[in-house]
């Protein structure tokens, strides 16, 4: 097996933020590397599976925000010839006319997670009446490899844009957002929307996104058995999505947006990463290339942060800082 990995020697990594260290250590025991065997466990609601999901933002959040938010689910058409998909739709009970729309794609390494995961991050904007948030239940790999996940995401986005009026969304203010694998899918869906000329997106919020299947960057090789999402788990996720094609010449930019040769015409971008995560360099490179293509980018690298640190260890000072900065960006993006 070692001979087949694309990693080579472990590269140097920066130290974790001191306040994050105990959390990272606890999770190292609770979240073993993602493999075919541990994937089953992680999808099961057994103790560790539940703990893991709760730690990464799947806790029992009251999506109604105490009654301020209407929670609704719709079955909408999937891609051509594919099954319908489910959209989770959160809208303010106190409706004051058309609002921005946040189209959300959950994380989970392309292989786990569900539509509620991470929605607590966007709930305040809905509860305060600034936005309608829609989260897509896309099909997961490896049962449903590429292009099923990104095409499901795109189909849900198209439905959302076409039904904006009914949902209370101003079609001129549609954002896309995602975390981790969801960030990668959000970037891929934004590329699809650009190339298919529909719909127009104003912003893409890419939270520690998974963009590159090739393991050529320094950071993609620096973590093994640590850091929440190490190179072995990352290889598992990409291989589940792409199979034999992973790392080869036949991977579409919609699956791995780092491969897109043209990034012009993409939406205003917020993108972030921890300095101690596998995705760090692909995030830095994507941000630079977007900027070179004429896209305005807010890039934040948080020194000492592991993958998803501000969702997993929300109490830490570095997490408070990251969350506040992102919140401020999103609030500006939602402004009329």
């Amino acid at each position, binding site marked *: 097996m070692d001979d087949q990995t694309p990693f080579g020697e472990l590269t140097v990594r920066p130290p974790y933020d*001191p*306040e994050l*260290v*105990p*959390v990272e*250590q*606890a999770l190292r025991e*609770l979240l073993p590397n993602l493999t075919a065997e541990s994937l089953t466990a992680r999808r099961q609601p057994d*103790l560790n599976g*539940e*703990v893991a999901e*709760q*730690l990464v933002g799947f*806790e029992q959040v009251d999506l109604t925000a105490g009654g301020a938010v209407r929670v609704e689910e719709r079955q909408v058409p999937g891609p051509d010839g594919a099954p319908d998909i489910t959209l989770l739709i959160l809208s303010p009970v106190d409706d004051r006319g058309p609002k921005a729309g946040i189209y959300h794609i959950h994380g989970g390494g392309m292989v786990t997670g569900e539509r509620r995961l991470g929605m607590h991050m966007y709930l305040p904007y809905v509860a305060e009446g600034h936005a309608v948030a829609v989260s897509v239940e896309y099909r997961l790999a490896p049962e449903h490899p590429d292009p099923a996940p990104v095409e499901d995401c795109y189909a849900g986005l198209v439905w959302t844009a076409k039904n904006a009026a009914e949902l209370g969304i101003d079609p001129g203010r549609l954002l896309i957002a995602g975390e981790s694998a969801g960030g990668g899918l959000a970037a891929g869906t934004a590329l699809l929307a650009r190339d298919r000329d529909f719909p127009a997106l104003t912003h893409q919020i890419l939270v520690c996104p998974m963009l590159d299947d090739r393991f050529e960057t320094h950071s993609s090789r620096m973590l093994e058995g640590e850091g929440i999402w190490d190179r072995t788990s990352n290889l598992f996720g990409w291989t589940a999505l792409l199979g034999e094609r992973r790392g080869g010449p036949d991977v579409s930019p919609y699956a791995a947006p780092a491969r897109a040769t043209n990034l012009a015409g993409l939406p205003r971008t917020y993108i972030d990463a921890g300095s101690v995560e596998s995705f760090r360099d692909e995030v830095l490179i994507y941000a630079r290339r977007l900027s070179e293509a004429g896209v305005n980018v807010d890039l934040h690298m948080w020194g000492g942060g592991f993958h998803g640190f501000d969702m997993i*260890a*929300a*109490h*830490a*000072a570095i*997490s*408070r800082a990251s969350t506040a900065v992102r919140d401020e960006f999103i609030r500006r993006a939602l402004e009329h």
Partner: protein
Amino acid sequence: MRDLIGKLEAVGDETAGALRVIAHFDSLVEQRAPVAAVIRAAAVLAGCPAGYHDAGRSLTRRYDPQGRSMAADAPRSWPRVAVPGRAGCCLWLEREGEHRPLDALILERAALAVHALTGERTHRSIGEAVKIACDPDASEAERRDAITRLGITGPITVVVGGVGDASAEGLLSPHTALVDEHVVTLVAGAPVFPSGLRAGTAVAADPARLPAALDHARLALRLTDRLSGPGASLVHYDDLGALAVVVERITPDEAGALDDVRRLDQARTTRPWAIDTLQAVLDHNSLRQAAAVLHLHHSTLQERLTSLAAQLGYSLTQPGGRQRAAVAVLLWRIAHCADA
């Protein structure tokens, strides 16, 4: 993280939860994390707000389980755990309802972590000793230690002055510290106060009463006049008698909202001498004496009082007028105690 500990508690795996708590704080110590990180960890592991108080530095920190900083003044007091080897330092959890099985362990390990990160503090500075001696949260043993360190025995006079004022520092005693926004000096016994001092004072018969005496001296300070003013610039709480009730019960904001106080404020816009004039007249038996203090001819003083009476709606010479003016000036000082 709270979800993790909660889950371990729910399945009855207290041992695993305890190990998790211990490993968490050990790791913060190993990483030389800041003390604030220890308090946040206590909050997130317990799932309720956690607080830290360092009397020697007049420092209080509180965090909620999301790591958000909370106001320093807690709405109520909670059972505290002392930090070993750090006089005047303690931690607490703000647990509403029943305690959780791991609460005691979380506090104990957090206290040990603070100790490990900050080290022993046995050689306190004089300022720290003054702060601990006056801190309501200090234990009696810590308070007595601090007093011993200052070398004071018997009753203690607490002298409180504003930072910008000529303070009691150096004039009376070297036992001085900045506590919140005031300069606090502790003096053994009942000192003879030098002139040129603007301060409030109160006497603590024994160390246990120092926190109360500090509060009293602060209240007395509210009633002081400026050094060059005709009123008393040094006010002893123990001389206030019935007036203490007024200054204890009325906040500056409440005082400022009273009609008679607002009339004085209005009068001062066109008659900047209004308060000084009233104070001098109230403090002396004759207009001639008051005029001398104000460096005025007594007919000028009479004219001023007549015009003031017209503006205030009452005169010092009418029945009850003098009392009303005295109370109004007292309340005006309370309302404006923070102006200096």
